[in-house]
């Protein structure tokens, strides 16, 4: 066979390997691996990074065997809707089997990133002891471990550069885990422990920071008295990314100027995040660094519009702003006129269940930003009212949007002026923003919007739908269109069997489909599973578990998760998750 491809032998393997190193994406490398056996061999032996979007799509041992020289692995577990408690508590996503295979097959692994997985302390200990060159550990939205597990990471990973814990649920049973970093340990570049909210021994932290001259990212946990923060900042003037934890200010006179001077020393600071409960009086302490900021995340803070506006108007170089809706339209208008380089805006609801007075954040705020910030690419916006005309204007203003997630908090909310569905508005978004890769829709929506999305959203990779549509046609439009769709998550829509069965092949071209509170029956799931052996069709039954065979075909399926896999049905599913 290789006779026909003798040109392959014209160069030594190292040359091909070097050539492949310029390929930007895994998809390109996958394509290269299909050309001939030699390239397949050379590519697999030289692959250094692997991304597994669904931990159940492939057996860990198989992945490790195919790519024996991997140095960096990223693995994701639970479906996205697990973030909102839509899956059951012990759904799965355990990292154990992956860590065991990796420990055996990739002893030189340097970087491990896990998202939405269940990671036990044992896993952390195995990783810490098995990977001698471990440099980066990143856990995002994970659970199952405690600070005791972190202690073993600290104690054993001599060259650790990054410990990045993002929004994990961590049991805090080892208060001084930070002290397990040995005195000789100086390599830390990133320390993100914002998700830990227990007490922390600040002087141990101070000593650690002092001996790590390359520390660039420091995101602290919740309880940091202001005086202590000042001390920490003085020890790390080289910081680029700072998360300040919760500042509790007991006002004593010199504190403000100390804080102000500490911030002024951070000449390289680009990212500022965290909770701010110190009160508006202390906020001016950060004015001196505002101009250098490219990212500002104040999503847990209760700072209100006037103060926030004063901050953002000084942030002339801001590219990323995450804030609470307390910023209001006025604050966003200030953003629109001051932050001309803004690329990403995320606005979160301060009062998601509408228990208090509503804030004055409407479609005007987003409209203003879309009008003033020509580089805007990514939007996440929670609000209570929207109009088709505003959406159309936003689409016109920002044709370069790649991510547009709009959540109108009350389901089925129409255009509040015309009372029409928001089909036209979202239609404009997908038709005018040709590079749109991620979309979340909300409000009152009919099947029409799905027709437009299916036809126009040619680059769309992820779509989230809730409380929308009239009939199965909606789902059919999506599955038969949207050529690049990888992830689809749907809740509370009248979508059912026919669309699924008619588009079964599409499901294998996607990573996963989540449907909950729709109109799917068990019979359709059975047919689908039979037709598509490389899909896992999992139904979640919270009421009983037990034997699937006995249930009738017309039984309603409340929660359905379908994903492609070459690993077959998973063996670690709890009793409430049944693979059809």
């Amino acid at each position, binding site marked *: 066979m290789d006779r026909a491809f003798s040109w392959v032998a014209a160069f030594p393997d190292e040359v091909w390997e070097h050539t492949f190193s310029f390929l930007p994406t895994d998809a390109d490398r996958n394509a290269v691996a299909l050309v001939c056996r030699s390239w397949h061999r050379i590519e697999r032996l030289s692959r250094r990074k692997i991304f597994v979007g669904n931990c159940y799509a492939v057996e860990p041992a198989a992945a490790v065997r195919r790519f024996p020289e991997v140095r960096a692995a990223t693995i994701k577990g639970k479906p996205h809707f697990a973030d*909102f*408690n*839509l899956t059951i*508590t*012990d759904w799965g996503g355990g990292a154990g089997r992956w860590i065991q295979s990796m420990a055996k097959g990739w002893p030189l692994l340097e970087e491990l990133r896990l998202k939405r997985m269940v990671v036990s302390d044992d896993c952390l200990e195995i990783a810490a002891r098995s990977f001698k060159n471990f440099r980066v550990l990143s856990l995002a939205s994970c*659970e*199952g471990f405690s600070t005791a597990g972190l202690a073993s990471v600290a104690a054993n990973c001599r060259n650790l550069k990054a410990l990045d814990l993002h*929004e994990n*649920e961590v*049991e805090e049973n080892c208060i001084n885990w930070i002290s397990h970093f040995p005195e000789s340990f100086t390599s830390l570049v990133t320390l993100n422990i914002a998700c830990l909210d227990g007490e922390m021994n600040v002087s141990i932290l101070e000593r650690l920071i002092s001996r790590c001259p390359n520390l660039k990212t420091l995101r602290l946990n919740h309880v940091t008295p202001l005086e202590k923060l000042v001390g920490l900042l003085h020890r790390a003037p080289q910081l680029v990314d700072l998360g300040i934890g*919760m500042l509790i200010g007991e006002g004593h006179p010199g504190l403000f100027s100390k804080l102000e001077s500490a911030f002024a020393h951070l000449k390289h600071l680009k990212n500022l995040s965290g909770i701010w*409960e110190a009160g508006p009086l202390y906020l001016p302490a950060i004015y001196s660094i505002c101009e250098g900021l490219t990212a500002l995340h104040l*999503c*847990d*803070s*209760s700072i*209100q519009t006037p103060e926030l*506006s*004063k901050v953002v108007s000084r942030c002339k170089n801001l590219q990323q702003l995450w804030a*609470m809706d307390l910023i209001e339209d*006025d604050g966003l*208008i200030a953003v629109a006129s001051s932050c001309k380089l803004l690329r990403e805006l995320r606005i*979160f*609801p*301060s*009062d998601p*269940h*509408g*228990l*208090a*007075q*509503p804030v*004055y954040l*409407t479609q*005007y705020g987003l*409209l*203003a930003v879309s009008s*003033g910030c020509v580089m805007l690419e990514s939007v996440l916006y*929670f609000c209570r009212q929207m109009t*088709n*005309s505003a959406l*159309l*204007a936003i689409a*016109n*203003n920002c044709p370069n949007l790649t991510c547009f997630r709009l959540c109108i908090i009350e*389901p089925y909310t129409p255009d509040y*002026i*015309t009372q*029409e*569905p928001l*089909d*036209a508005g979202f*239609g*404009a978004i997908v038709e005018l923003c040709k590079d749109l890769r991620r979309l*979340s829709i909300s409000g009152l929506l*009919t099947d*029409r919007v799905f027709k*437009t999305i299916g036809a126009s959203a040619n680059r769309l990779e992820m779509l989230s739908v*809730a409380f929308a549509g009239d009939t199965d046609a909606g789902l059919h439009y999506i599955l038969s269109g949207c050529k690049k769709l990888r992830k689809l998550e749907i809740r509370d829509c009248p979508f059912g069997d026919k669309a699924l069965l008619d588009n079964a092949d599409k499901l294998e071209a996607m990573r996963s489909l989540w449907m909950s509170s729709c109109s799917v029956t068990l019979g359709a799931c059975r047919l689908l599973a039979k037709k598509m052996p490389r899909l896992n069709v999992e139904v979640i039954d919270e009421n009983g578990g037990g034997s699937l065979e006995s249930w009738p075909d017309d039984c309603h399926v409340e929660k359905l998760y379908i994903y492609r896999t070459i690993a077959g049905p998973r063996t670690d599913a709890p009793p*409430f998750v049944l693979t059809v």
Partner: protein
Amino acid sequence: MTPPMEHDYMGVNDTELRLGLPGSNGRVADGGATGGLTLGCAKRGFSDVIHGGSFSEAGEDAGGVTKAAPPPPPAKTQIVGWPPIRSYRKNTIASNSSKNNNDDADAKQGNECHYVKVSMDGAPYLRKVNLNRYSDYKELSLALEKMFTCVTFGSYGVSAREMTTEGRVLDLLQGSEHALTYEDKDGDWMLVGDVPWPMFADSCRRLRIMKGSDAIGIGKAPKAMEKSRIRN
């Protein structure tokens, strides 16, 4: 709901589309400046009254228009997982009521959160519960049973209110598989149910579901009773 239109969305509503037609020059800005959006805003929502149809300076009322605060919406039954925010964002979300500083009546409506972590021995996951959502031990117990589906507290939760003696507490523990304990403000671990609910809700920092036998062995109950006697 409007009937489906035959032509595509461009023809849906001309008054809307007069504003910011695709291909029109320049950015389509907010109402006041270009006069663009004001056309469509014949029926204004409350926010239009506030802004008076133009950009307002931060912190100023536009043209002295009174901020007509709409009445707070009635409490709604909450849909699971909606709105889609990570349940991770918690306690620090401040109540709006203190900000819209007007009625005292509203002050109590603010969503005061008191989330505490709940761990269960042997389970690889933690959960968080908002203690302010429950008004007594029974409700908390039922919620936890739902959350940790294989746990039953026997009659523990139901009769927690009636528990007055040590003996009774121990009886209940023998009867059920799991015991619910909590860490209080002082860092001590106590059995749940010994003190009046408001006191518990205030001082609880985290919850832990232990195997019933462990709880007895540690002998927390007597200490808890002592503590509450001292406090009461």
